C-alpha cells in the first residue's frame, strides 16, 4: 500500500466531439499489480487504456507513470506496451521480425535482438521453428503468444491488455488465462487488463475496477466486488445475485435495525460491518449471492429466511439453478451444488435461508 503508484490517473476526462467517454476517472495502480478494468461496452474502459498508452490526448486530467506526467509524451516514448484486441501482428513480418520489432526500432544490434527473441519464445512456450513463419500460419492461441512476446520484449513498465482473449474459444481462453497469470507472476510487470468478461477479471486480477458510462463505480479486490458491491449495477454485473428490498429503521455504532415484509429475522438487526457506508435510513437492498442461499426447515435456526415457491429448475452439470417466487412476488435465484437427487422440486413450497455473514446491504439505485 505504501509503495508509490506506478500509474496514477487523476480526474481524467475524455470527450469525442460532444460525447463524454470518460467523466472524471481517478485510479492508482500499484507496481507489480494485475488490475482489471471491467464494464459493459461503451463504459470507457478501452478509452482509458488508450489514454494511458498515449494513442489519444486526454481532454483534461493527468496521467502519471512512475510519477512522470505523460501529457504530450507520444505513445512511442511511453514505458507502456499494448496487447491489442485484434492482436495487430504485422502480416508482412515473420514471427521473429514481429517479436523483435520494438528492439529493432530502438536500434538494438541484430544478434542481441535474436537472443532476446529466443528468450521470449522460451518464456511464451512457442516452438522455435515458428520464428520463420508468418503470423497467419499460426493458430489463434499461438498468435496470442507472439503478440504477448512482442509486447514484453522491450521490458515495459506497464503491460496494457485490450481484451486480447475475447475472440478465442472457451477452452483456449482458459489455457491463456492461466498463461497470463503465470506470465504476470514470473515477470513482475504491472498488468492493466481490459475485459468485459467478469469471470476472467475475477480469476486474473489482484484488483478489479468496475466502470460504467465513463466513471469508476467500484475499485476493489475480487471478493470485495463480488460480495460487497457498491451499487445494484455492480452487484448485477458481477454475476447473478438477489437484491431484496428492506427498510432501514435505525443505526447505532455496531448495529443497524431493519424491517422487511418477507424476511423472517428473529433479531431484526444486522452488524454495521455488513452495511455499505452510504446506506442511510429508509429503503435499502439486501444482496445475497445465489450460491449462499440454502433450503431449510420452517423452524430451522437460520439467521434469515423466507418462504417461496420453486418456479424453475435448471440442471447445469456441476450445479443446479432454481428460480423461486416469494409470496410478495420477489424473484429469487438459488444455486446448489449438484447432487444425484434434487433437493427441491418444481412447484414445491420451500423455506430458503442464509447466514448474515454472507450478505451485504447497499443503497438502491439504477441497476
Amino acid at each position: 500500500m505504501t509503495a508509490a503508484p506506478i500509474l496514477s490517473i487523476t480526474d481524467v476526462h475524455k470527450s469525442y466531439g460532444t460525447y463524454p467517454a470518460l467523466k472524471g476517472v481517478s485510479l492508482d495502480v500499484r507496481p507489480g499489480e494485475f488490475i482489471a478494468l471491467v464494464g459493459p461496452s461503451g463504459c470507457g474502459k478501452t478509452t482509458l487504456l488508450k489514454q494511458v498508452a498515449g494513442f489519444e490526448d486526454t481532454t483534461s486530467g493527468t496521467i502519471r507513470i512512475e510519477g512522470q506526467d505523460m501529457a504530450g509524451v507520444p505513445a512511442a516514448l511511453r514505458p507502456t506496451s499494448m496487447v491489442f484486441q485484434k492482436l495487430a501482428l504485422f502480416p508482412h513480418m515473420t514471427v521473429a521480425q514481429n517479436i523483435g520489432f520494438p528492439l529493432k526500432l530502438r536500434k538494438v544490434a541484430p544478434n542481441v535482438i535474436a537472443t532476446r527473441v529466443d528468450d521470449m519464445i522460451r518464456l511464451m512456450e512457442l516452438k522455435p521453428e515458428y520464428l520463420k513463419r508468418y503470423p497467419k500460419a499460426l493458430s489463434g492461441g499461438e498468435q496470442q503468444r507472439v503478440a504477448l512476446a512482442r509486447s514484453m520484449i522491450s521490458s515495459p513498465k506497464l503491460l496494457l491488455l485490450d481484451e486480447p482473449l475475447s475472440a478465442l474459444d472457451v477452452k483456449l481462453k482458459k489455457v491463456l488465462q492461466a498463461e497470463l497469470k503465470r506470465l504476470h507472476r514470473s515477470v513482475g510487470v504491472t498488468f492493466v487488463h481490459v475485459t468485459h468478461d467478469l469471470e476472467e477479471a475475477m480469476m486474473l486480477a489482484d484488483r478489479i475496477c468496475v466502470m460504467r458510462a465513463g466513471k469508476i463505480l467500484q475499485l476493489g479486490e475480487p471478493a470485495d466486488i463480488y460480495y460487497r458491491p457498491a451499487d445494484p449495477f455492480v452487484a448485477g454485473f458481477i454475476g447473478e445475485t438477489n437484491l431484496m428490498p428492506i427498510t432501514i429503521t435505525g443505526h447505532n455504532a455496531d448495529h443497524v435495525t431493519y424491517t422487511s415484509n418477507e424476511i423472517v429475522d428473529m433479531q431484526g438487526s444486522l452488524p454495521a460491518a455488513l452495511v455499505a457506508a452510504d446506506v442511510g435510513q429508509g429503503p435499502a437492498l439486501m444482496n445475497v449471492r445465489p450460491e449462499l442461499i440454502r433450503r431449510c426447515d420452517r423452524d430451522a435456526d437460520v439467521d434469515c429466511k423466507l418462504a417461496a415457491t420453486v418456479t424453475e429448475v435448471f440442471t447445469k452439470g456441476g450445479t443446479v439453478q432454481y428460480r423461486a417466487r416469494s409470496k410478495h412476488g420477489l424473484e429469487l435465484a438459488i444455486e446448489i451444488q449438484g447432487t444425484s437427487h434434487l433437493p427441491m422440486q418444481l412447484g414445491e413450497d420451500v423455506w430458503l435461508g442464509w447466514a448474515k455473514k454472507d450478505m451485504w446491504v447497499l443503497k438502491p439505485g439504477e441497476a
Partner: protein
Amino acid sequence: MDMEVSRSWREPELWVKALPSVILQTTCFLAPLVMTFLLTFQKTQNFQLNWTWNLATWTDVFSKPHYWTILGHTLAMAVACVVVCIVVAFPIAYGLATRFKRLDNEIKVLITFAFITDATLKTFGWVLFLDKKGAANYLLAHLGLPPDTVAFLFTDWATLLGMVYNLLPFAIFTIYLSIDNIDRSLILAAYDAGAGKFRAFWEVTLPLSRPGIWAGSVLIFLLGVGVFLEPKVLGGGKSPMSAELIRQTFETRVNWPLGAALTLVLMVVAIFVVLLFSRVAGMRRAGA
C-alpha cells in the same frame, strides 16, 4: 489438402457446372485469339483476304526494325506512365484513406465521375489547354512569364501527360483500397512498439499497401500499352505507339495478317513483362 483442389475433373457434374463458363470463355476469348493467330499465316491481295498458308507476315515482322522500335517506344511510355501514376497516386490515395476520411464518399464519387467522363473529350480538352495560344500560356503570360512557356504539345511529353491523366484514377483506386484495408491497430501497434510517424509509415503502411501498388501498376501498364488516343491527339501522331500502328495496319493498309501478327507480338511482350514484374514483386514480398 484443400477439398476444392483435390476434386477430380473426372466427376461429370463438375463439367456440367463449368460448362457455361467454358462456353463463354471459348467463344469470347479463346476463339478470337485462335482466329487472330490463324490470320497471321494468310495474305491480303487487292484488299481481299486470301486463305493461303505461309510465313510471309512473320518474316516481315521479324525483319523490319521499325515495328520493334515502335514496340520499344510503347513499352517505355507505358513504364514511364506507371512510374508517374504510382508516384502521383500514392500521396493522393494515402491522403484520402487517412487524412480526408470524412470526405471519403464525396471524393470517391468525384473519382468515379473521372472514370465515366469520356476519355476522348478529356484528351481534346488538354489540347485546348496546352496549345500555343491555349489556356495555359494565356494564364502564364498574365503572371508575367514569356509567351510559349508551355510548348510541349505534340511531343511525347504531352502524350505521357494525357496517359497519366486518363489512367491515374486506376492507381488511386487500387492504392486507396489497399491502404484503406490496413487495420488501424497495426499503425497503433507500430507507435506502441516505439516507432515515430515516418517509421510507422515506412515499416507498416508502405509494405502493406504494396499489393495495391502492384495491382495498380499492372493495370496501368496493360492499359498504357494499348493507348492510341493520347499519342494521336496529344502526341500529334508524330511517334505512334503500337496500338495506333495496329489500327493503321488494319484500317488504312488493310493488311489484316500483319495487324494480327503485331497484335500477338504486343500481347506476348506485355504478358511477359507483367510476369517478369510479378516474379520480382513476389520475390520481394517473400524476402521482406
